[in-house]
Structures are given as structure tokens and as C-alpha cells.
């Protein structure tokens, strides 16, 4: 599993990361642009969703149609997402088209047309995205959970809010782009088949002209963990809850990951066993680790019909709390095997590796090799997890429910 990691930092601060993968004919890349939801001015929530669409509507002297035709002609499968700190632009394609694709993305990032006649379409689509969240209570529960668990601006919804989106103008969006698309904080990661020296000289040529901008800090407000309920006349009560955990920089990070795997790794994990297998309360129940650089939490989702909602919530809370009472050797072993095995499976996907490398660099200032992660997981013992749970008990929760009826929370 020994893995090579390529790293290059340009004079203007931009970072280029590469993970070569044998035996693949594809390449995937990920640009992290420092223009995520938490970095927006107070009255511009949702601007990244508009910007992410707008920058693809023409760039580098090409119209929107010409640009899309060129990308399609390369057979690119592209995706954009809004994160707390970044707009992430990722793509996967056949390796022979990588150079041309990166040239087009350099235009999209540095020379977007930002045609004002196109702005309104991007804004309307962002408003529609927000409206369609109303029809997806499961997704809405998890976005609201982050909003209530993490203090503002960390937990802001990537979709923004209606008032800000209605007031957003092309001028405000241009201003945000010019202040936030700061080359010194752009992270680029590639995985798959590529030639690193050639790639670096290409990226250097494309991005060298960009001068570093000012780094943006955020002021994190305080927030208390509470229960939030939204009425929705659907079939289920959607339950989200989250408890604080340690960030990836913390010495206890792998203890937290193993603890979550015991709770909700595979089908033999505690939540699946107690909530679904023994009691038949839910179809969907699961917990997962989530983190920003500043804060982290363990989030849990369950969807159930109204008459079972209270019991579902109570059983989940009891399982979170019971974890500190003890873990069997078998449970620990299964949790570790599950984590290690997922790691290797994910390493076969070029896009997973590129995205993980970019996020690692942002979080830790380095890219962890698969070997390093595996060794860290192997070090974890029952004692180390229980010691972590003593320092960081899972006993304080932020809860959100959306559905026809409310529940009582701890």
C-alpha cells in the first residue's frame, strides 16, 4: 500500500498535490477555491451557489455554450459543491484530456465572463435549489442540524437563505469573486494517470500571473446546543442529532473515528442492531463523523413514522451514552477492519483520492498516505477509545426534527 504523494507550492502560494495511481487510464482533479459559505459577508448567504453556476457561463473569451461544448467534448464528468470554506470544482475524465481540461478550468477560475445578463439565471437557479430543499426533509434536517450545531458562520447552509439570495446583485457577486478567488489559498489536487512535472509547469504558467490576495478570517460566534423542530406534513419524522467531537488535527482523532465505527460502522454496529434489527424502528439510521478545521461533531440521522419517533430518539441517545461504558474486543476489531477496508476501496477511485488529498492538505497542511492512516487505526485499543470517551463524553446533543409531530429531547 506504499503510496507516493507529489507536492509543489508555487511562489504565489498556490498548492499542487498529486497522487499517481497505477493501472488507471483516468485522472480526477479537485480545485478548492476559498469562497465557501462561511466566508461570505453577513448579507450574502447563498452567494457561492450563484457564483458556482455563474463562472461556468462563459470564460476566457468563450461563450457559455462554447465553454460547455468544449468540456462536453472532452467527456468530462464534472461536479461543483459548496463547502463551509470552499467552492470545490472537481472533474474526472480520461487522462489524455487532462491538460485541455485544466486549461479550461484555469479560465473559469481566473477569467470568468461574469456576464450580467446571465447572472439572473444563476440567481434564479439558486433560489429554486433552496425551494426544492423544502421537498427533501431528510437533506433539510442534516443542513439545519449543522446550522444549529456549529456556531455561525461555520454551519451556514451552502444553499443560503431566501432574503439574501433575493437581494444579491451581480455587482456584489463580482466583488466576492475578486476578493475570494485568492490564488495563494487555492489548493489543486490530482489523482490517477498524470505527469507531475508537466502538470506543474502547466499550472504554473496558467496561474503564475495571479498575485496573492488577502487571507480571510472568520469570527466564530457562540452557540448553545438546543432542540429545533420544524413542522412538515410528510410521512416520517426526520431526526438529526449531533454531539461534539475532536477535529482531525487532534491526537484523539482516530479514537473518535473508531468510536463512531463501533456505533455505526457496519450492520453489526450498535445503532443498526438496537434501532433497526432488534426494534424495527427505522429503515435509515446511521451516525457519521463530520468536521471543519475549527470544530467537529458526530452527526446522526434517523427517519421514522411519528408514533415511533420518540422511542427512536431515546434509543439512539442511550446508545451514544452507553458507548463509554465499554466496548468489546470483537467490536473494536470489526470497527478497525471496516475503516481499513473502506480506505483501500476508496483508494481505487481517482476522484475520491483527489478530493481526500485536497481536504487533507487544507485540514492538516499535509496529505496522509494510506499507510499512515492504516498505522494510526491499528494503534487504537479499547482502552484508548474509552479514555477518549472519558475526556469527550457523548452526552450533549443538538437535535433537529422535521415532521408531523414534535418529540421530547434531553
Amino acid at each position, binding site marked *: 500500500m506504499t503510496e507516493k504523494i507529489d507536492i509543489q507550492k508555487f511562489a504565489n502560494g498556490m498548492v499542487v498535490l498529486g497522487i499517481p495511481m497505477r493501472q488507471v487510464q483516468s485522472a480526477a482533479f479537485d480545485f478548492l477555491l476559498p469562497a465557501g459559505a462561511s466566508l461570505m459577508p453577513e448579507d450574502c448567504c447563498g452567494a457561492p451557489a450563484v457564483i458556482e453556476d455563474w463562472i461556468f457561463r462563459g470564460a476566457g473569451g468563450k461563450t457559455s455554450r462554447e465553454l460547455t461544448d468544449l468540456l462536453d*467534448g472532452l467527456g468530462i464528468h464534472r461536479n461543483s459543491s459548496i463547502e463551509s470554506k470552499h467552492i470545490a470544482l472537481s472533474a474526472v475524465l480520461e487522462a489524455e484530456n487532462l491538460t485541455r481540461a485544466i486549461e479550461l478550468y484555469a479560465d473559469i477560475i481566473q477569467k470568468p465572463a461574469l456576464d450580467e445578463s446571465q447572472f439572473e439565471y444563476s440567481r434564479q437557479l439558486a433560489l429554486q435549489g433552496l425551494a426544492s430543499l423544502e421537498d427533501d426533509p431528510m437533506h433539510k434536517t442534516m443542513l439545519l442540524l449543522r446550522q444549529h450545531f456549529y456556531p455561525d458562520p461555520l454551519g451556514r447552509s451552502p444553499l443560503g437563505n431566501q432574503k439574501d439570495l433575493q437581494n444579491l446583485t451581480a455587482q456584489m457577486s463580482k466583488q466576492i469573486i475578486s476578493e475570494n478567488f485568492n490564488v495563494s489559498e487555492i489548493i489543486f489536487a490530482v489523482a490517477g494517470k498524470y505527469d507531475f512535472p508537466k502538470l506543474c509547469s502547466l499550472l504554473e504558467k496558467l496561474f503564475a500571473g495571479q498575485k496573492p490576495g488577502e487571507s480571510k478570517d472568520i469570527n466564530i460566534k457562540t452557540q448553545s446546543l438546543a432542540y429545533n423542530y420544524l413542522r412538515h406534513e410528510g410521512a416520517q419524522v426526520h431526526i438529526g442529532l449531533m454531539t461534539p467531537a475532536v477535529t482531525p488535527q487532534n491526537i484523539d482523532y482516530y479514537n473518535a473515528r473508531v468510536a463512531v465505527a463501533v456505533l455505526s460502522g457496519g*450492520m453489526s454496529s450498535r445503532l443498526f442492531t438496537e434501532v433497526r434489527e432488534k426494534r424495527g424502528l427505522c429503515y435509515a439510521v446511521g451516525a457519521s463523523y463530520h468536521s471543519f478545521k475549527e470544530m467537529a461533531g458526530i452527526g446522526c440521522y434517523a427517519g421514522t413514522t411519528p408514533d415511533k419517533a420518540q422511542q427512536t430518539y431515546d434509543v439512539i441517545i442511550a446508545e451514544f451514552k452507553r458507548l463509554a461504558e465499554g466496548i468489546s474486543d470483537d467490536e473494536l476489531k470489526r470497527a478497525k*477492519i471496516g475503516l481499513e477496508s473502506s480506505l483501500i476501496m476508496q483508494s481505487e477511485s481517482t476522484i475520491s483520492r483527489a478530493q481526500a488529498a485536497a481536504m487533507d492538505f487544507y485540514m492538516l497542511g499535509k496529505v496522509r498516505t494510506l499507510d499512515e492512516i492504516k498505522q494510526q487505526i491499528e494503534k487504537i485499543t479499547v482502552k484508548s477509545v474509552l479514555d477518549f470517551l472519558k475526556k469527550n463524553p457523548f452526552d450533549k446533543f443538538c437535535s433537529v426534527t422535521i415532521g408531523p409531530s414534535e418529540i421530547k429531547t434531553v
Partner: protein
Amino acid sequence: MEFKHKKLANGLDIIAEVNKDAQSAAFGVFVKTGPRDETNNIAGVSHYLEHMLFKGTDKLSTYDVNRRFDGLGAIYNAQTGDEYTIYYAAILPEQLYETAQLWCQLMRPALRDDDFNMEKNVILEEIAMYQDLPHYDVHENCKALHFGEHPCSIKALGTVESIKALTSKQMREYFESRYAPNNITVVIAGKFEFEKICDYLETGCADWQPKHADRKTEYFAGTAKKEHQKKKNLTCRHIGLMSPTVSYQDDRADAATLLAKIIGDDIGSRFFWQLVDTAIAETATMHCEAMDGVGAYYSYIRTPEENCSKVLQIVEDIFKSLYREKISADELQKAKNKVLSAITIKNEIPMERLAELGINWTYLKKYRPIEEEIEKIKKVTIDDLTALMQEFPLMPFTQFSLGPEK
């Protein structure tokens, strides 16, 4: 990549594609049964049975099964499609043989009444969950409306009524008639030794008895009916459209896939430019659902309620324009590039390759190497698309939509 095939005496097909350079292996059991093999009084039994297979055998409890899979580090699950039920695991190569053994054992389940009664709650919760996912709900309802009395109309999960009324005896009868070795294909992809896995399978599956497991596959072009339902919890209009096309077995299935991409790929298609780029709809996509003996194009559009008439007018204009002016060479080439790069990317992962291999074999009883798949796509011409549209008109289509009350 090296293809291997072995047929056991009881009719069980074992097919495999060995990739010595892969990091992992994938194992799948493809049972040629699904909702279309059900009748209305047992609607949902295929999917419910899929859940019940995880409940163990005479020798293994649910908890034993879960612990063993997790202990192997398997990423495992199952899926019930309209016409097949797939059980699968992605696994590190050294754990493959034990995983295969476990799946073989599970294919002869205990189907205990206690487990059956408990799992009924989970199935009813799953039905409720999908009721809160309108894009899924609209697809199931559109399919039911389109196929009318044809067996493909049966909803994958069944209904609350059919599940509540279903007995364990009915499930056992269904299992006996459908899970025969001659109706099952075992598929393996990635890094492994074929002979070794065959030894395990021969021991584990030899006593499965073959049975007559047939399926009616008559063609049906669809009802072209229209229906709209209002729901008080909805904000947007969710529109599903279906029109007929070729079956999976038809040589023109690749042309149908490309035509759907030209019309409704999520980026760069006709739907995209006329509906999404112009912010009339948030989402507008079309794909081809080529099935056993039948086929349909399915379009899904999500739009603000007030844009609904405009959207339907534009969709009709797009469909009509395809008959007025030929599709351009450039449009076809872009669609091909997208499909071809998708083939390269997904075949790099054994789990993805497994799905392709198993579904091809289930429908065609044939191995199709990646090179052949690529060649077939490359050969499609504009005239092929034109002829396809003439034989399978895009209009009139079946239309089902869900929208808000106000």
C-alpha cells in the same frame, strides 16, 4: 482482463473477470427476479425477501451474519431492481473466499416468522421514507401509470396494504419458485483465483435444485395517460414523463442511451439549454431504461409550480424539433464522449465492473468485453437515432406529476 465462465450441473452460472492489478475484488449474486415477476397480491415480496436474506439461515442468526460480514471488512448490501435482485460485497482479495461462502449460505435462508414480523416494520418505514422523497415517488407512480396492466407497473416496494397483508408462507412460495440455481448468476470481478472460488461455490451451491423459473416478456408501448396528484407537504412541481423505446436485448439499446443523453443529460443537452440554463426548471434529465423485452425513456423535471405549463410546452417543442431537424454530428459525438469516458472510469473499480458484467449476463447470457462496449457506442450513427425515433415516437408520452396543494 480475463473472462472465465463455469456452469454447474444444477444450472448455476459462475462468470468472472479477473484483473490481477486490482486492489480489491467484488462478489455478486444476481437473481433474475423482481417486482415484475410479482402479482398485485404479493407486491413488494421481492424486495422484502431481499431484506430477509440478511436474517440468516438455520445455522446463522441475523447478528451472526452482520458480525461475519463486518469482521471481513466487506462493503456489502443488496438491491432490488424492477427485474433483478442483486446481493453484493466489495472486499479485499484475501477475504473474498469466505465472503463467497457466506453469501452462498444466505441464499438458502431460514425465513423465520419472528424475523419476518420484525422486518415488516422496517419495510413499512422504508415505504414511508420514499413517500418523503418526491423524485423517487414520482418515478414509481409514473412507471405504474405508463405500464398499466403490464407486470412492469408493480411498485418496487409494494404498497402499505400489500406488505401488511403479505404472509411468510407467500414469501416462502415465492422464494422456492424464483431462487433456483438456473435463475441465478454468480459474478466476480477484480483480483482473485477463479478455480479456487469455483471450488468454494461448487461445495456451497451443489445441492440447490433447479426449477422452472419463467418470466413473461411481452412488449408494451405504454398507456400515454396523464395524471397529477397534489400533496400538502410539497413546494415544487415534480414531473415524470415516459415514452417507449427498445429492450435491453435489442441491438439498438446503445442508440437509445445516446439519444436520451442528447435530449436530457444533466449538462449540455437539449433539456439543459432550454430548461435549466434558462432557469425555467431546476433539474431536467432523461435516461433510457432498457428492460427485459420492453424499454422506456424516463424524464424527470423539477420546477417551480408556476413554470409547469411552460416546461411542458418546451418539452413538446424539443421532442417535435428532433423530428424536424436532424441531430447534429457534434451533438452525437459529445454524447458518445461522455458515455465512453464513463465506461473507462467506472470499469477501473471492480464493484462497478461487477454490475455491468452481471446485468449483461442476466439479460443477454453473454459476456461483453469493455472493448466491445466501446465499439458498439462508436458505431452508432445519426441515421440510427432517426430510425429509432421513427419506430419509437417520443410523443405521446405518459405523464405523472406531484405538486403542492396551493
